[in-house]
């Protein structure tokens, strides 16, 4: 009985958390895409700065990581494929698993580590130092002021980063392909492109868009719900990372399932 009550409470908590996330994302989306038509311009400059920070500055580390992931994928799939003498399928195996799954996912995880945590820390610090209160007393909506630019930056930058991550992964795979599987660079790239359907790339991009929404909502919500005291900022930041990773994988599962059944016929 006690156990059932605890489970029930946990489920209710989780649902209400998801509700707050959806509400926050909804408000940000409204301010980003509908607000400008109602005469409430978005802070475009701030969005560009956020896009630089979350997107462009993530490129070096993201490139390195996804290059390695591509290489690892090639090695792992080659291990199986070699037994069937199908080593020339390495290119398509890497290309498809990068674009459909690992490109968006690895990108999301890198962005969570760099930006999701930063959102929570930035907004949490502002909350603790009464800056959020100050915004409210100035009749400036904190969501519009702080969350919307981040939201815009993230939903645009994550798909862009994902495309970049896919390419770097394929490049990583090609290193193995050329050194171990008798590919030339051009043949490997050709084989990769041939293996890919537009659908593979698009499903990855849809996922990454949803990841962007999730990461922003979690980071900002954790920041906004920071309690009093500096130690709470650290806690919010940690929570933002853990919850974001969990929810990104959950969203991934939901969408992968969806695409599986949609693509079945």
């Amino acid at each position, binding site marked *: 009985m006690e156990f059932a009550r605890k489970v029930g409470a946990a489920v209710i908590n989780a649902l209400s958390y998801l509700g707050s996330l959806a509400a926050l994302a909804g408000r940000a989306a409204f301010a980003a895409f509908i607000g400008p038509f109602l*005469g409430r311009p978005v802070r475009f400059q701030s969005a560009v700065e956020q896009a630089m920070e979350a997107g462009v500055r993530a490129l070096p580390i993201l490139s390195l990581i996804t290059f390695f992931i591509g290489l690892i994928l090639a090695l792992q799939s080659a291990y199986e494929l070699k037994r069937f003498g199908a080593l020339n399928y390495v290119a398509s195996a890497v290309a498809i698993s990068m674009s459909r799954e690992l490109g968006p996912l690895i990108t999301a995880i890198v962005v969570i580590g760099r930006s999701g945590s930063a959102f929570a820390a*930035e907004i949490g610090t*502002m909350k603790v130092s*009464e*800056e959020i*209160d*100050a915004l409210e*007393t100035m*009749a400036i909506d904190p969501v519009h002021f702080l969350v919307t630019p981040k939201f815009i930056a993230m939903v645009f930058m994550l798909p862009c980063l994902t495309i970049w991550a896919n390419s770097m992964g394929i490049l990583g795979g090609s290193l193995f392909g050329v050194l171990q599987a008798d590919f030339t660079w051009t043949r490997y790239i050709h084989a990769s492109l041939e293996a890919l359907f537009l659908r593979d790339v698009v499903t990855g991009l849809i996922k990454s868009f949803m990841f962007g929404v999730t990461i922003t909502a979690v980071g900002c919500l954790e920041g906004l719900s920071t309690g*009093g005291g500096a130690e709470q900022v650290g806690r919010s930041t940690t929570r933002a990372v853990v919850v974001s990773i969990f929810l990104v994988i959950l969203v991934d599962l939901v969408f992968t399932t969806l695409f599986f059944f949609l693509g079945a016929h």
Partner: protein
Amino acid sequence: MPGIADPTRPSVSLDGPMISLREVRVSYTGREILHGITFDVQRGETLVILGGSGSGKSTLLRTLVGLEKPSSGEVWIAGKNFSAISETERDDIRKKIGMSFQGGALFGSMTVGENVALPLREHTKLEESTIDIMVRLKLDQVGLSGYEQYMPSQLSGGMKKRAAVARALAMDPEILFFDEPSAGLDPIIAAGIDQLILDLKQAFRMTIIVVTHELASAFLIADRMVLINKGDVVAMGTVKEMQNSTHPRVRQFMDRVPEPAVAQELDYLQMLTEQQPRQGSPSPGKSR
């Protein structure tokens, strides 16, 4: 229209109090902090809210600016019931309110000048060149000329506080709220803030509400004072009335008598051994 909606000034009916509290109760996590506060603040009046740490005076201020929702009772500002109006109407009132936070609450990612300019940029259609001059005027008023380009982190505590006052003044508000304006400032700077409050009242007929526990400053700037203790209004009156009050709690505050120890030995024993009713209630020192 993001600009100032109401062209005439004063924009609300001239008669009636500027701020009016009716039986306002505020609770945090089930614990009631304010137990039914009622008072009025007249237009152009300076009211000082006095009270010790944990008396609920900061919560009272946060309720007045709409950062806390009363669990019951009403807060009327400029003739409008603050908790019963639309978001847009509330924002229109907030544009006429300036609030100076205790720690400054300056935006760390912006320069001092950008901090002061922010409400003007967000809410008015003024030219950048005009805003620039306004920012310098405001910073000059608080004695921070030439600090526009500094980041808040480069300022001392007292300077942050003054920059926050400049930001609160940016929109030429009709009502100004100060949370502990002179706490932690050196006496000369604190006197400067007091003088500024007097000047603003004189020149702009601002309604000013100051939360403080600095008696000297309170006597200087207040038209009326209200003493809060444990979430209740203990006494309210003019400076003279408060100074001459015979109310024990007022006397204690005015004469700076320390809190007496718990009188009865049995009470003391009980206090020491009593089971705590609940854990995790917020510390009484800070109001959050």
